[in-house]
């Protein structure tokens, strides 16, 4: 992508152009990284340094005390156990919700893209409407529905909510991917006697690795960072990390301790950072991937 087209020539020659390019990229990276660096640097400061009020200064005596407090003993409302209990809650909400919404989205997307059916486009349109309506508008009806199903403020309830709210998005992404897969492949599988689900499982899913990774990452980030749904639907026993983070930050008792707040914020963000680092390559490949050859 950085290759210049033939015939395109910079006034300053290729080397100057390259330098300029790198300078721009470094500046952009610094611009986006600066907040993260500030948060990390302040989370490593003891309270005395914080009180001096110089946000931009680097820590003089770096310490992990604030991290330990945030992790184990900061007060989240009435309890004072840090964000630690929230980590496990977040994991047990996020993992099943990501897996279910991704696979169900793949199945939906495949059906809508390849099953020649008169109303497929209408259904797709209705699914898209689900994308455009903001969460907030659907909260009250969702609360009513879940309570009538006795799922309000339960573990199953929060997963169901994440899956349902994620489906329009995952369905759209998979549908757009599967529209590019030649229809004859599905027809060939049908000739071989494979059912719809068998075709999906044995033929279609194995060629979808890139898009599966992309959707799973997007869903992971979205569900992990969710605050509102977790607060409303998870119930007290399953509150995710984000809710506890907010409780630490908004804790009215005692004095404010920004270093603890920042440490808690970083701890909460670490899992998504890890996911991006581990799968960034697939992510870029999946975004760039067009139709499947074969």
């Amino acid at each position: 992508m950085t290759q210049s087209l033939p015939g395109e020539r910079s006034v300053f020659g290729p080397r100057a152009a390259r330098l300029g390019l790198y300078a721009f990229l470094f500046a952009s990276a610094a611009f986006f990284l600066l907040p993260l660096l500030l948060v990390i640097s302040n989370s490593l400061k003891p309270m005395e340094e914080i009180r001096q009020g110089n946000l931009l200064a680097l820590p003089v005596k770096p310490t992990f005390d604030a991290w330990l407090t945030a992790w184990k003993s900061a007060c989240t409302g009435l309890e004072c156990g840090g964000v630690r209990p929230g980590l496990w809650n977040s994991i047990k909400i996020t993992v099943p919700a990501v897996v279910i919404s991704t696979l169900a989205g793949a199945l939906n997307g495949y059906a809508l893209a390849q099953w020649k059916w008169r109303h497929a486009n209408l259904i797709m349109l209705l699914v898209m409407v689900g994308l455009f309506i903001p969460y907030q508008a659907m909260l009250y009806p969702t609360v009513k529905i879940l309570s009538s199903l006795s799922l309000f403020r339960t573990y199953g309830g929060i997963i169901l909510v994440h899956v349902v709210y994620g489906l329009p998005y995952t369905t759209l992404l998979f549908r757009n991917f599967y529209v590019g897969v030649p229809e004859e492949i599905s027809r060939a599988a049908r000739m071989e006697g494979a059912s719809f689900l068998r075709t999906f499982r044995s033929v279609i899913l194995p060629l979808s690795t890139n898009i599966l990774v992309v959707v799973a990452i997007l869903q992971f980030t979205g569900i992990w960072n969710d605050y509102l749904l977790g607060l409303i639907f998870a119930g007290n026993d399953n509150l995710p990390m984000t809710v506890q983070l907010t409780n630490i930050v908004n804790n009215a008792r005692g004095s404010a301790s920004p270093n603890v707040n920042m440490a808690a914020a970083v701890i909460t963000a670490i899992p998504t950072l890890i996911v991006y680092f581990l799968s960034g390559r697939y992510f870029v490949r999946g975004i760039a991937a067009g139709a499947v050859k074969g």
Partner: protein
Amino acid sequence: MSSVSIRKIRKSFAGLIVLDSVDMEIAPGEFIVILGPSGCGKSTLLNVIAGLDDCDSGQIVIDAVDVSGLEPSQRGLAMVFQSYALFPAMTVRRNLSFGMEVAGTPKATIVQKVDWVAKLLQIEVLLDRKPSQLSGGQRQRVAIGRALVRSSSICLFDEPLSNLDAKLRAETRVELKQLHETLKSTMIYVTHDQIEAMTMADRVAVMHKGRVEQFAPPQSIYEKPASLFVAGFVGSPAMNLLEGSLDGAGRFLVGQRSVSSSTYPFEEPSTAGEAVLGIRCEDIDVVEPGSPDSIPAKLAFTELLGADALGWFDCLGKRMSVRLGVDAARSMRKEVGLRFDIAKASFFSASTERRL
């Protein structure tokens, strides 16, 4: 070996008639080619036979069993797709064995079958590769292998050679014909390439606008086209066509000129009226200008084709092709006479466009 009987198949799509009452009786072991220009409904017909597309009315009967309502896999047929449609994430071996895996065939039988078909098509060395690592010709062989591996009694081919280069296409054509001779299964083959139709088919069905125009052995399609469309579509160069009228007394009148039609085997004697004379380039003789029963013509240009040559003449206001020897073409004079071999020609009614 199975017989296939296609009865009154109709299909329309968004108000457009794709298949208009198609009837065909296919004997066990026949090699049938469905030939036609793009958009004539030939691929749709194949998909209807396969069960991949529904039709509005009509029946598909295989070995005296009506299979119209059955799933493709229950009809006992196999299909080769134009784009090959190999499963991209599977090795060649799994591509071949997938259908049998789905059907729950025992492992040992699967291995045996895959080995058999791999040997038959000489693709043993490719078995552990993915489709993306194969060339077009190799993918083609795998696709054919996947259709043959389950020994279905009927094989359907949807323009399987159209993505190959000319040389490979000619080779594969011969191989397919030999495969048919070895396996003796019933084959239905869709193409727009008349050379494939002429060389491979036991019988050719020429389709036009959702109808079967003619269903006959390739040589009689060439020699006795049943309609004006078939006459124009089959053969290269296309058949020479002259509009005129039959006087009912043994002469065909074109403008000021006329030729004798008395040697032509009319289906109904003393047919008269507006008609079109169709004559192949090899059924025209070049003679001295003014010879009896000849029509004066002017040479436009000649094409040397290697083994023989084509002369293009302006005659009766039309550009007509005549097949010539290479030497004759080199020494061709400008002003000549053309004499038509009417016994081998075709007359078509100008109104119904059917053969007279």
